[in-house]
Structures are given as C-alpha cells and as structure tokens.
C-alpha cells in the first residue's frame, strides 16, 4: 500500500491558495457565524451585526402581519435614508449663497448628470417622509401603542415628527427661488407671531419673544444670506444629526419597552403556525435568563410561552427590505412623473401673492390668517402638549395593540370623523361666507380676536367634544380617540383649504382659475 508522500507546498502554491481563498476568508471575517441557515447562525446574524442588532433575533408572527404596523415606521426610515443619500449627492453641487444657490439648482436641474432626477427623488422622499411620519403616528395612536410602558417612546416619536417637519421646512429655502423665499418669509412671520399679543399689550418694546424667535431663525431682519446659511446648516447638519440620534433612541426603546405592541390574545388569533415557525420555548420560561441582577423588570418572554415567533432573519428582514424598496419605488416613480418646483429667482421686491408655506404648514397658515399668535404658536403648542399628555392621561390597558381599541372603537372614530370634518368645514364656511369679528365689529380690540377666532373656537369645540366622550363612555381612551381623530380631521380640512382654495390675499377661491389676474 502506498501512502502518498505529503509534499511540502511551495511558498508560491501557498500564495496562490491564499489568493483564491481570500474572498471566502473575507466573507468569514465579515460574517463570523457563517450562512444563516440554522437557528443559531440566524441569531448570530442578527446580534453579530451592528446595524441589525437593534432587532430581536426572533420576531412574533403578529408583528409581521401587514395590518399590524403597515410598515409605516420603516417607510419613514426608508424615506429618510433616501433623502440622506440623495441629499449628500446634492450637496456636491449646491452652493449655500443667495443667487449662487439658485444658479446651482439650475445647474443641478439642467447639467449635472441625473441631477434633476436626484433632486426630484430628494423632494419626493421628503414629502413621503412627512406623510409617512404622520400616518405612523396615527397608527401608533390608533393601536394604543403609546400606553405604558411606551409613553416615553411616544414622546421621542413626537420629537422625531417635529424634526422631520423642521428638516422639510429648512430644505424649502435652499433653492432660493420665489416659492422658497416667500414660504420662509411666511414661516418666519409665524415665528414672530407672539408679537400680536405683545403688541396688543403694548410691551413689545421691552419684551419681544416673537421678534427674538424670528431673529434666531433668520439671523437678520430679512430673509437673506444669513438666513440661508442658517437653514443650510440646520438642514444638512444639525437636524439630521438630531434626527439620527433620536431615531437610535426610538428604535432602541422599542425593544427596551417590550417590543412591538400586540393584543393580549394575539397568539390565539393567529392561524395555526406553519412548519417552519416552530417555537424556541415550548413552555413559558419562569424567569429571565439575562442580566437578571441588573435589569429592572422582566424581559418580554417571561411568563409568556409558548411563544409564536419566527427567526428575524430572514422573515422580518424580508418585510423591512420590502417596505424599503416599495418606498424607493414610490419616490422614484413620483420623481419621473413630476419635477420638483423651481420658480423665479427670489426677489424681495415682488411678493408672491398668495405666498404659501410648505403644504404641511398650510393648516397653520390658515389659522394664522385668523390670528397670528394662536395659529402660529398657541394652538400648535396646545396640540403638542395635548399629544404629549395622551399617554399619561390614558392609563387603561384594554384594547392595547388593537386597531381602534377593538370593537366599539371604529364606530366612535367614525363619529369623531363626522364631528371633526363637520365642525372644521362649518366654521370655515361661516368665516368665508360671513367673515369674523373684525368684519362685524371693526373696532374690536385685537386681543379679543386673538382669544376668540375660528381656530380657538374650533379647538374649543374639539376639546369639549372629547370631554363629552370621556363622560359618555366613561373612558379616557374614548376621549383620546375622539380628540386625536377630530384634530387629525381638522388638520386635513385646514390643510386642504389652505392648499387648494386660498388665492391672492388669502381669499377663498373655488379654483386657481378664478384668481384675479390669471
């Protein structure tokens, strides 16, 4: 019998083998646990990856249902990532200085290869992000996902919402065209609106928070180069960093607060599991096995078995990637259909009439038309405070994780929608048809109008309605549902009126075709 001679490989052969093996070794070095084919490697795939480890390694099947989250949080994140990538590309060509800014946008539009396309995607993704974040907030609200222990994450979410609007708004000025210039002028005037009150009290001279806010925003008395560099810095640096930081907290808190919200009886309502989705624990663990000594409370699986989970890799990641790609598809599709607007070069001497803020602020602008202070500061503050208080006022537990809190919720929401739409349309119709206090009693002091204007009346009606709901159903949840719904409806109505039915001098027109001079 011949034992083959073990020939020592020459250094050259070793080199060749190493070279051939390099790709495999690189892969092994990057993904330390090998292909995610077993439970174990699928788990390490998740927690061994810095980007994925915010996910849990296993995902409950309830969470993967499209109706649970509708992917809105991921869609918002996806839209943000798209704006991030396209935004960085745009920064290569954009010059943040008046006039040069406009020219550079023209260059991006006409000369930079795919520049117009990239800019369109950026613009559409920004709008998709605003819409998605509002819908995400509504979803969170209607499934009562803000309840204990997720109150704080609800607040973080509100912060993200505000930053999203801020990002969108600061981006609005950058093209330095008429649209941008006058929208920012309107925005800055909204910031200055506390003057309405200080003026009425005759104390602006020594106490002028409105003027200060405006100055802080613009860095000057006018919308000029100082404002542009401020908005640019906020847009490309400060707000994105803040957003990323808060997003990290937001995602992290999802897990720390017990994962995605589910109804208590979620397991029972899922159809029987398929082969591949076998449980890890066949019976409920009685105690937590992780960091028991230093973590307060219990981890989510304690006393909750046998659970109904599947490995996050690949089930959750397919879902997330699908939403990411769908969002991308929507943004790209819209970009091919419609160009981002670019009007004439900004000209402080020729005011746009009507000058309109970005669409998501047109509801505010509609109220600002009634009273600058209440519309621009007062009511938004009330709404923000109200939203922030909701998780601390609604301490019920029934219906958590259910759309509209289960049976009875949807009829209530429908009723609230009727009230929300009805009241806002009615009061707008009244104002448009008959005017308001100023038209009826020309001598009425401004403070009275600040206190009593269509915006505040509408807010009061909504508030009274939800108080009535709390008493009628003897439930804070009912009141919260109603309140959120009516405000959402009011926002929609005011935004639509501001967007489509307001013309020169903020007068009502059925169609832009009826505008004078056009």
């Amino acid at each position: 019998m011949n034992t083959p001679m073990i020939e020592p490989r020459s250094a050259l052969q070793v080199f060749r083998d190493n070279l051939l093996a390099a790709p495999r070794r690189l892969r092994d070095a990057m993904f330390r646990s090998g292909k995610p084919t077993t439970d174990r490697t699928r788990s390490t795939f998740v927690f061994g990856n810095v980007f994925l480890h915010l996910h849990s390694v296993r995902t409950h099947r309830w969470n993967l249902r499209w109706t649970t989250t509708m992917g809105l949080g991921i869609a918002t994140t996806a839209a943000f990532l798209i704006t991030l990538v396209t935004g960085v590309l745009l920064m290569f060509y954009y010059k943040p200085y008046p006039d040069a800014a406009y020219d550079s946008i023209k260059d991006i539009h006409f000369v930079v290869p795919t520049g117009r396309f990239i800019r369109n995607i950026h613009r559409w993704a920004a709008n998709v992000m605003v819409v998605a974040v509002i819908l995400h907030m509504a979803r969170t609200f209607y499934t009562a996902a803000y309840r204990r222990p997720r109150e704080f994450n609800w607040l973080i979410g509100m912060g993200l919402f505000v930053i999203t609007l801020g990002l969108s708004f600061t981006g609005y000025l950058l093209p330095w065209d008429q649209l941008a210039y006058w929208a920012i002028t309107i925005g800055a005037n909204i910031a200055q609106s506390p003057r309405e009150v200080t003026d009425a009290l005759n104390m602006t001279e020594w106490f002028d928070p409105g003027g200060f806010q405006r100055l802080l925003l613009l860095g000057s008395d006018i919308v000029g180069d100082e404002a542009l560099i401020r908005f640019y810095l906020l847009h490309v640096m400060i707000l994105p960093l803040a957003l990323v930081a808060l997003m990290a907290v937001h995602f992290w808190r999802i897990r720390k607060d017990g994962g995605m919200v589910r109804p208590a009886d979620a397991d029972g309502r899922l159809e029987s599991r398929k082969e591949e989705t076998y449980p890890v624990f066949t019976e409920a663990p009685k105690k937590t096995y992780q960091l028991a000594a230093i973590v307060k409370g219990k981890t989510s699986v304690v006393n909750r078995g046998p659970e109904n989970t599947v490995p996050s890799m690949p089930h959750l990641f397919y879902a997330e990637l699908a939403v990411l790609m769908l969002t991308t598809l929507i943004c790209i599709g819209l970009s091919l259909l419609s160009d981002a607007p670019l009007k004439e070069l900004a000209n402080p001497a020729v005011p746009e009439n009507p000058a309109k803020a970005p669409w998501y602020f047109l509801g505010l602008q509609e109220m600002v038309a009634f009273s600058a202070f209440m519309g621009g500061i007062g009511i938004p503050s009330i709404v923000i405070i109200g939203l922030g208080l909701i998780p601390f006022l609604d301490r019920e537990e029934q219906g958590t994780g259910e759309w509209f809190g289960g049976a009875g919720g949807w009829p209530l929401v429908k009723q609230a929608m009727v009230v929300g739409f009805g009241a806002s349309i009615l009061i707008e119709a009244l104002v448009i048809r008959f005017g308001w206090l100023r038209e009826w009693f020309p001598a009425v002091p401004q403070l009275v109008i600040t206190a009593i204007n269509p915006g505040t009346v509408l807010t009061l009606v909504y508030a009274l309605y939800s108080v009535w709901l709390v008493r009628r159903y003897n439930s804070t949840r009912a009141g919260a549902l109603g309140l959120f719904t009516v405000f959402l409806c009011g926002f929609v109505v005011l935004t639509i009126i501001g967007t489509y039915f307001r013309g020169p001098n903020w007068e009502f027109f059925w169609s832009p075709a009826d505008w004078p001079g056009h």
Partner: protein
Amino acid sequence: MNKNKHLLLWSSLGVFLLLFVAAGQEEFGKEWRSIQKASRSSEGALDVRLRQIVNPTLGISDRCVSCHVGMAPGESGITGAAVTAAHKNVVHQTADYGCTTCHGGQGRATEKADAHGTVHFWPQPMLPMKYSQAGCGTCHSSLNVPNLAGLEKGRSAFERLDCLACHRVEGRGGTIRPGGGGMEGPDLSHVGVKGYVANWYDAHVQRHEQAAELPWKNSFGAISEADRAALSDYLATRVGASKLIEAKAQFNSLGCLGCHKVSGVGGDAGPDLSRAGEKDPGQANFTHVPGAPILSNWLGEHFRSPLGIVPGSQMPMMGLNEKQIDLLTMYVLSLRRRELPGAYLPKDRVSALRFGAREFATDGATIFSAICAGCHGADGKGARYPGIPPFPNIAGPDFLQVASDEFITETIKQGRPGRKMPSWSSEAGLKPEEIARVVAYLRQLGGNTALVTDTNPPRWVKGNAAEGVKLFAANCSGCHGAKGEGGEGPALNNKVLLSTANDRFFVETIGKGRRGTAMKGFLEPSPVRRALTQAEIESIITFIRNWETKK
C-alpha cells in the same frame, strides 16, 4: 413571508426598471446630444459634449451653444441642422458676451423651451427675433437720438447727396464696379460706435480738388452747412442697430416722457418705464392679449388699448398705427438696463451716468416732441383724449402774441400744480438752456410768432370784483369751473398761472379768445350770449386775481 418576498421582488424590479428608464432619459432624451451627433465640422464628426460660454463678470453660463454649435467659441464651418448655423457678424464677440446678455432667455438651461425662456417661472424669456435689437438696451443707452423728423432729415440728406454711391450703410449702397473694385468709401453701418473723422468734409473736398479722374473727379460736390449737420447727426446714430434707433426716434416723437420717466427724466403721471422691458411676463395679465403670452404681445395690445389690458389705466388711447406700435414695442423692450461691472460699462452709459447726458437729442424740436407733444400735440395745437380734459393749444398766434418768453419759461419750470402739467425744473426735468430751446422752438412752431409788446405794467387792471363774480358765474364757470378749478377749460385758480401771467395776457385772451380752441373772444357777441365790455372783462380779471391770495 411569501407575501413580503413577493413585495420585495416586485418593488425591487420596479425600482430597477424605473432607474433604467431614468438612465435612458438621461442619455437619449437630450436634444442637444442628437443635434451635435448630426452635425459635422470640417474635421468630421463633432465631439458630443455640453458646450457653454461662461463669463463670471457678466454672470452668465450660456449653454445655448450646445444646440447652436456653430456659435460656440472656436467653432467654424459646422454643417447640420439649421440651429447649428454661425452667428452673423456683429459688433460684439459672442465668445465674450455670450448669448443671454443680448437675447435674454435662460442660459443655464439645456432644453429648448427652458432655454428660450418661454416657460413658467422664467422672468426673462428670449426677445423675439424681430425685436432682438432691443437687447442692446441691456447695456447701452444710445445717446442723443433725435425725433423721427430729425432722423429722417439726416437720412434723406444722406441719400439725396448720394453718399450711398461710395459708402455702404446697413447693407445698402457702395456700388461694386464690374471687374472688381468699387465701394470707394468705408462701410458706415457702425460709424456711430467709434465715431468718425471730425474733418471728413474738408478731407473729402481736398481729395476732390486733387483728383484727376473718376470717381473723385466728379462724384463729390460741395455740401451746405445745414446738410453737413444733418449728416453728422445721422451718422452718430449708425451704431449697428438701425431699427432700435428708429424705435427710439419714434418714442422721442410722441411725447411719452411728458408722463413717463425713463432713466430719471420725465413726468410722474405714468409709471417709470426705465426697466419696463424687463417686466416678467409671469406677472403680466394676458387675459385680453391675443397671441402668445409674451411681453411684446402684451405691449403691443397695451398701446392699442391701454384700458383693455390694465384696468383703471390713465394712459390715453394714442391712436397709433401698427408701425408705430411695432416701434414702440421695440423701444420699451429695450428698456432692460442691467447693473454692469465696470469693465463692461459702455461709453454712452458712462456719459449718461457721470455727465447726465440725455438719451434724446437736446435740440428744441426733439425735446418738444419727446416731452411736450404727448399732451400739446406734435404741432403744439393741443390734444384731446377721451375722458381727459383737453390740453391747451400753445402754438397758436393768439397765445404766443400775449405770452412772453418769461411766462412760458416759468410755466414750464413750475408746471401747473394740481393739473397734468408737471414742473420741469426738478431733477427729472430739463436744464435751463434746454427749456430756453423749447421756448424758442415753440415760437418757431407757431409760425415764428413774436410777443407783441406793450407798455403797460404787468398789473394794471382795476375792475369791480363784485361785478366780476356774477360775470364769471355767467360766462366762465361752465368751462373753467365754479371756483375756477378747471373743467373742459384750464384751471384759472392756479397760483402759478396767476402769479406768472400778466393782466394783458388775461385781457387779450378773454377779449379775443384763442383760435382753434373752445375759447371764443368775449368782445364779440355769440348766438347764446351778449358781448362783454372791456370794463366787464377787467372786472372778471380782478375777481380771478383774488384767487392768487385766497385759499
């Protein structure tokens, strides 16, 4: 999970497909690429790339030459589509001045509609080709253009004296002799830019006297001094923009400056026109303008019927013909003066800025027709527009015989406060010597009517004011207003009039009237009233004089 997989698959495929479409648009959807691909230069196929003229001083990046390749710097002999033709020879180098500086449009754009500026939100669309000389107005003010009659005088002298036999102007004249040679004199089309030899006449005479043979021998003759002056004026306006010069002359013939300011000179009744050629079509109302929504159409329609375009416009219907409208449109389009970096300031602009040089020639005739003719008529006989009280006849002998030069000068200087006549001694008005020329021209216009002198002092009338009240109410108030505030006739309670006109002016005017106007002589009876006596006229004047001091 399957549903998610499918969603991922299909949306990824969709993204891929749309990116493919976008890439295709980028590569094959650009017109300038196909134009360049189809063009050939003397060296064969063109290098397909974005071409542009960049001039940071003028602030232009003109990509027009990406399609109009033949106009790109350094390109010549391009063949291909019509757009690739070379630029015709003009005073300025296109490689330096770019395209949009003169033609307007959006230089940064790379697509036809955007580049030509006929899109929403581009305030400076291209000037229509027939008005392209209006583009000169971006930098030039082009000085001292006479009125149409003055321009015509020079042109006709030029042709009558057969200068075209040897010289070429705007493509005419300068006969080429059979067998080569000819066109003895230089081309004078641009002679106004650099100026011409001041002693050209003497030089011509000298050449003529020394010449032994044709053409100098017999094709030149003596030219009168008046003709030489007319020729000089004409040649000064040959700057390579004859139609624009004609348009300016037209503007200087209609008295528009009586109400409108241009470059700081003119009246206040109408809007300042200094930059009217830059009006953003997006800000104009085209509801009642036929044709394309471009500024030239708006202007033309506005000249035809101001009120039909601008509600509440005070501008009278001038009754212009189409040629005049065309020229005025050209003129207004040329009012597009841009701030210029020093290196690009043309001489005419400097002399206007630094030395207050006028855009109109400052002889009495041109000043009168450029400023006064709008209201007082080109012949000075007054004008009547619908809805506006008639403007007085100031060139009739009845007026000129009693109005002294001082009176007319003061009237021009102080105006008639409260009436249309503004004061012309302000910054936006005329210099004293210019006013003097206008007054002299006015006498000439009125058939060289001189003031008939008399020996009375300025104020000698002493009538019965109480009597005058009744007489005024009965005879004068119908036209001049119950309080002399004016109506169909001029205002008589005007302080400037009362302080500058002497008694004789009133006595003669009331007594003899003004021929050619509604004012009849009151010493004669008319079918509706009796004649007034001299004493009664004096009473009226005494009464009128009370307004000079009374509020």
